[in-house]
């Protein structure tokens, strides 16, 4: 089966920001996303409970130009204020078209 390269952007952010982050991703053309609950620690201290706030781990698979836009948007609009960690990696997927902005969805 033919694999093609895509970019995976992983964002670790305060869970309070979930809906705003997802809103941005959709605006930028992401066709989907995956969220899981996470705890963590970093320069903004410990985030590990309901009272202290917890993190989400948000994954979004996008094509390289969209990945670049996602990184820029998150770094500009959220990172300066909030403790957010974001990283990008190159992954291989089966039908890349599914992940390219709006077009090519598999349904």
């Amino acid at each position, binding site marked *: 089966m033919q694999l093609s390269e895509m970019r995976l952007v992983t964002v670790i952010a305060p869970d309070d*920001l979930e809906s705003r982050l997802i809103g941005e991703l959709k605006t930028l053309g992401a066709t989907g996303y995956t969220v899981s609950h996470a705890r963590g620690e970093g320069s903004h*201290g410990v985030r590990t409970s309901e*009272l*202290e*706030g917890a993190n989400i781990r948000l994954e979004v698979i996008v094509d390289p130009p969209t990945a670049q836009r996602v990184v820029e948007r998150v770094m500009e609009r959220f990172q300066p204020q909030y403790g957010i960690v974001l990283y990008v990696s190159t992954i291989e997927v089966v039908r890349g078209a599914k992940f390219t902005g709006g077009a090519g969805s598999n349904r």
Partner: protein
Amino acid sequence: MDLLGPLSASLLSPMVLAFALGVAAALLRSDLRFPEGLSTGLTIYLLLAIGLKGGAKLQGVAPADFWAPLVAALALCVAIPLWCYALLQRMGRLSTVDAAAIAAHYGSVSVVTYSACVVFLDGLAVTYEPFMPALLAIMEVPAILIGIQLGRRASAAARSAAESGTLRELLTGKSAILLGGGLAIGWLGGSAGQAQVAPLFETPFHGVLTLFLLDVGLVTGRRLADLKRSGAFISAFAVIMPLLHGVLGVALGAAAGLGPGGATVLGTLAASASYIAAPAAVRVALPDASPALYLAPPLAVTFPFNVVVGIPAYHAFATTLIRS
């Protein structure tokens, strides 16, 4: 006045002891940890339960009885964050945004401290006005808004986070929805509705609160180090201000015509510092503010102080003031 009886009753209540157990477990580095589903579940339960019970009591309250205490409560909610802010900034030498964040917490109210007060009064068979839970819900919001506005003036980060922390966001926050929604459900359903849910939301309330406080204790224990780092001024602030606010609350309550029970509750609300609604709002709206400064003092100092010393003291003051 005998303060020792109530004090030891408070100190030895399962609620306070569970809190202490949580603190101890955290300091001993126990592996005890409440999973997300349980912690969040307990918070949802408590907020909704307080709302429901309060709402059911609201039926039959005459607006005429309500407005004076409402004005007193609102006055407290506006004044407390303002002077806390000034004090923290000038005397405490805190940054604007940290001062504003702490002011939001002390101006808002703690539902857990409120519950402890109600348990205390119930233990003494002292009644209080049926609209006190509605005051609790109302008093939660204004100080947070004021604190956020104060902080925002100074912080670029907060300004650029400006789409958040608005009134709309606060009013649709988990805390307001559950407390306010619970009030509405309780009020509309009345005593018939409340009878249906009481076996879940009233009878075991105290036990759930005990369990929740174990979790609060765990967080507090982990945060004790923050307290040490943030200096003696904050710790003193976290004892002295609640005492002042409590006394003021009782006095205003008395002036507004509340009985000793109601005045004690208003004093407690004024004295209490939020640790559910305010941190959630401040985290988003004043992201620059340091959680070490606004989480630890309410949890580790003000809450136990109020439960063990404050509430009995406010009640003693209320009975002296109002009986005489």
